C-alpha cells in the first residue's frame, strides 16, 4: 500500500507540474511545428525531374524543380550548359550576370528579366530557393533565343530542348497482331541503331546517340501481349521502354529499312516439341502467319485511337500574314491549334499530333511526313489571311492539283507505291466529305461567315496520305481589326465545330 501511495504521489506531482507548465509547453510545441512547417514550405520541391539539353556536340540534363504548379530550372546551370557565364554579382534580391556580350538581371519574386536593358516578362516570377536562382521553364523560349546564336527547337510543356542545327528525329508507332504474339513497329524519320536490355520485367531499347523528339510520349495498347510503349530520355539517353502484358514472353527486336524501322516482336515461346523457339524463327514470323498450333489465337484488338494531325501554318522566320498591332498568322493559328487539340483530347476519341513544335517552321514535306508516318486519320492545316471585309470568316479548302485532274482511278486497286506529290489524290473524295462535315457545322454559327468549300492548290495538303483540309480564318491583313480572330470564344467555336465535324465525318473517323 505504501508503495502505491508513493506512486500516487508521483503521478499527482507530474499532473501538477504539467498543469503549471501546460501553457508554455503548448506554446513551445506550436512554435516547433510552425518552424518545421515554414522550413518545409520554403524548401519544398514537390516533385523533381530532369530537363534534357540536346546540344550540337553533347547532351546534358538539369534537374527541374516544381514549385507550386510551375517547373523551374537553375538559371546559372542553364547558361553554363549552352555557353559560359563570364561573371555574376548577387545582391540582396537581385542577380546580375555577364554572358558574352550580354548582361542579364533577374530579381527574386519578379517576373521581369532585364536583358541588355530590354525588359522581358516571364510567365512566373524568378525564385531564389536554397541559395539557387531558379527561372520558370518559359525562360527557354522568352530569353534564351536572344542569348544564343544557334537555332533552338523547344516545344512548350516538354522537358527537352534542341539547340543547334541538328534536327531531332521523331517516330510513329504501330501495333500489329501476330498469330502467337504482337509486333510493335516504330518508324523513325532518320536511321538509328539500338541496344536491348531488360529491367524490372520490362524491355528497354536504347536508341543510340541520335537526338529524338517524340510527338507522343506514351502509347497504350489493348493487346494480350503488350501493355504500353513509353519514350524516356530523362537521364539524357533516349530509349523506348516496352512493357509486356505478362511474364514469360520473348522479345525479338530488329532493324529494317536501313535502320528507319525498329520492329519488336513480342512472342509467346513455342512449345519445345515444335522446336520453333529460335530467334530466327521468331523474327521471320509475319502478320497473319500461322505461328504453330500451340500459340494462343490472337484476340481481336480494339483499334487504337485514330490520329488527328493538326498543322499550324508557318512558324519561325515565316510569319505568314500580318495584321495591325503585330498580330502574326503563325501565332494566331498556333493559338487556334492549341484550342482544337484540347477539345479533341477531351473527347478521348482521338490521338492528336501537332506538326510543329513551338515557333519552328518545318517545311511542307516534313509536315506531311508527320501525318503519313503516324497513319493519320485526318489532317487539318490552319491558316489566316485576307478573306474580305466580312470578319470573322472561315474558309475551308480541299486540295486541287494545279495541273487539273489526275490519272488516279478511284476504282482501280491502289498501287503499292504512290508518288510522293500525289499522296493526297486518292483521298480527294474523303477530303471533300470532311470539308462538307465541317462546313455544315460552321454554317450553324450565325456570328461566323463561312462557305462555300473551295478547292485550291494548297501546297501543304499535296503529300498528305489521309483526308485533309485547310482552314483559313480572316480577315488578317493590315487594314482590318484582328480582334474578332483573337477572341477566345471565336477560337473555341471553331474548335467545337471541328470536334462535331469529326464526329459526323463518316460516323467518326477511324
Amino acid at each position, binding site marked *: 500500500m505504501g508503495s502505491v501511495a508513493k506512486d500516487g504521489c508521483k503521478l499527482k506531482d507530474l499532473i501538477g507540474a504539467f498543469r503549471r507548465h501546460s501553457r508554455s509547453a503548448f506554446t513551445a510545441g506550436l512554435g516547433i511545428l510552425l518552424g518545421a512547417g515554414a522550413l518545409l514550405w520554403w524548401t519544398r520541391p514537390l516533385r523533381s525531374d530532369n530537363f534534357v539539353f540536346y546540344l550540337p556536340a553533347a547532351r546534358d540534363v538539369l534537374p527541374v524543380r516544381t514549385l507550386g504548379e510551375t517547373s523551374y530550372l537553375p538559371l546559372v546551370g542553364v547558361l553554363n550548359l549552352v555557353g559560359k557565364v563570364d561573371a555574376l554579382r548577387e545582391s540582396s534580391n537581385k542577380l546580375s550576370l555577364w554572358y558574352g556580350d550580354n548582361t542579364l538581371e533577374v530579381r527574386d519574386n519578379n517576373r521581369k528579366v532585364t536583358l541588355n536593358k530590354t525588359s522581358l516578362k516571364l510567365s512566373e516570377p524568378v525564385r531564389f530557393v536554397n541559395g539557387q536562382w531558379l527561372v520558370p521553364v518559359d525562360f527557354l523560349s522568352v530569353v534564351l533565343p536572344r542569348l544564343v546564336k544557334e537555332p533552338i527547337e523547344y516545344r512548350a510543356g516538354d522537358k527537352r530542348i534542341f539547340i543547334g542545327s541538328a534536327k531531332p528525329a521523331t517516330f510513329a508507332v504501330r501495333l500489329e497482331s501476330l498469330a502467337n504474339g504482337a509486333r510493335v513497329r516504330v518508324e523513325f524519320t532518320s536511321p538509328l541503331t539500338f541496344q536491348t536490355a531488360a529491367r524490372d520485367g520490362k524491355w528497354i531499347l536504347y536508341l543510340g546517340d541520335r537526338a529524338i523528339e517524340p510527338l507522343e510520349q506514351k502509347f497504350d495498347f489493348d493487346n494480350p501481349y503488350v501493355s504500353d510503349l513509353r519514350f524516356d530520355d530523362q537521364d539524357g539517353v533516349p530509349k523506348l521502354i516496352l512493357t509486356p502484358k505478362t511474364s514469360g514472353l520473348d522479345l525479338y527486336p530488329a532493324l529494317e529499312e536501313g535502320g528507319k524501322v525498329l520492329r519488336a516482336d513480342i512472342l509467346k515461346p513455342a512449345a519445345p516439341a515444335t522446336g520453333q523457339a529460335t530467334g530466327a524463327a521468331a523474327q521471320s514470323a509475319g502478320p497473319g502467319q500461322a505461328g504453330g498450333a500451340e500459340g494462343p489465337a490472337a484476340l481481336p484488338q480494339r483499334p487504337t485511337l485514330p490520329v488527328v494531325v493538326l498543322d499550324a*501554318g*508557318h512558324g519561325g522566320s*515565316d510569319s*505568314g*500574314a500580318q495584321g495591325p498591332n503585330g498580330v502574326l*498568322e503563325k501565332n494566331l493559328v498556333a493559338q487556334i491549334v492549341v484550342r482544337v487539340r484540347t477539345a479533341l483530347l477531351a473527347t478521348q476519341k482521338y490521338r492528336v499530333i501537332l506538326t510543329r513544335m513551338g515557333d519552328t517552321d518545318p517545311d*511542307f514535306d516534313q509536315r506531311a511526313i508527320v501525318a503519313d508516318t503516324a497513319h493519320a486519320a485526318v489532317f487539318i492545316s490552319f*491558316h*489566316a*489571311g*485576307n*478573306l*474580305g*471585309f*466580312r470578319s470573322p470568316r472561315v*474558309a475551308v*479548302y480541299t486540295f*486541287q*492539283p*494545279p*495541273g*487539273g485532274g489526275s490519272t488516279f482511278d478511284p476504282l482501280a486497286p491502289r498501287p503499292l507505291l504512290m508518288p510522293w*506529290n500525289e499522296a493526297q489524290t486518292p483521298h480527294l473524295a474523303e477530303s471533300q466529305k470532311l470539308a462538307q462535315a465541317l462546313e455544315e457545322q460552321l454554317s450553324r454559327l450565325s456570328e461566323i461567315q463561312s462557305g*462555300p468549300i*473551295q*478547292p*485550291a*492548290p*494548297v*501546297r*501543304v495538303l*499535296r503529300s498528305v496520305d489521309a483526308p485533309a483540309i*485547310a482552314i*483559313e480564318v*480572316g*480577315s*488578317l*491583313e493590315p487594314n482590318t481589326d484582328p480582334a474578332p480572330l483573337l477572341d477566345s470564344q471565336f477560337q473555341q467555336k471553331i474548335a467545337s465545330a471541328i470536334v462535331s465535324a469529326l464526329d459526323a465525318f463518316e460516323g467518326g473517323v477511324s
Partner: protein
Amino acid sequence: MTSRAKLLTVLVLVIVAAGALYLNALMHRLRSERAQPTEASARTKLAEASLHAQNAPQESVTLFFPSNDQGVLLQETRQLSLAASDTDRIRQIFLALLEGSAQGHGAPIPAGAELRSAFLAADGTAYLDLAAGALPLFEPGIGTETLAVYSIVDSMCYNIPSVKRVKFLIQGQEVETLDGHVDLTEAFVPDTSLKPSTP
C-alpha cells in the same frame, strides 16, 4: 553657371533629344515602307509591250480580277491592240492585269512585280518568269494567292488560245509556293469554278 546658361543647356539637350527621336522614327519608317512603284511605271511597261502592235486593230480582251470578299474572279473587258506573237500577247495580258481593274476589283499582281521574261513552249505551256522581288509583294493567304494565280492563268488561257497552261518561275527557278500557301511546283490549267455563274 548662370541661370541663362543652364536654360540654354537644357534647351540644346531637348532639341538634340527631339532630333534623335525624329531620326529614329524616320529610319523606322524607311525600313518598314516597301518600295511602291507607281502606276505610271506599269503604264510605261504596257506601252512598251504595245509597241509591237502599233498597227494592229483593237481587240476585246477579257481579264479576270480577284474579289477577296466573294472569293471569286470577276470578269472585265477592255480594248487592246494585241501583238502578233503569242509571247508578246502574254506580256501584254500580264501588264494589263498589273495595271489593275478599271472597275475597282482587286489587283491580282501587286505593283512592282516585274515580269522578267515570258515564253510559250510547243506543248502550250506559257512560262512566266517573275523577278525575285515580286514574291513578297503578293498578299499571303490561301484565298488571296489562289485568286491571284488563277486570275493570271485564266486571263492568259482565255485570251490566247495557244496557251493551255501556265507555269510560274521566280528568277528563272521553280519555287515551292507563291507566298507560303499556293503550290507553284506544277503548271496551272484554268479553273473555271472560280468565276461566278453570271459575269
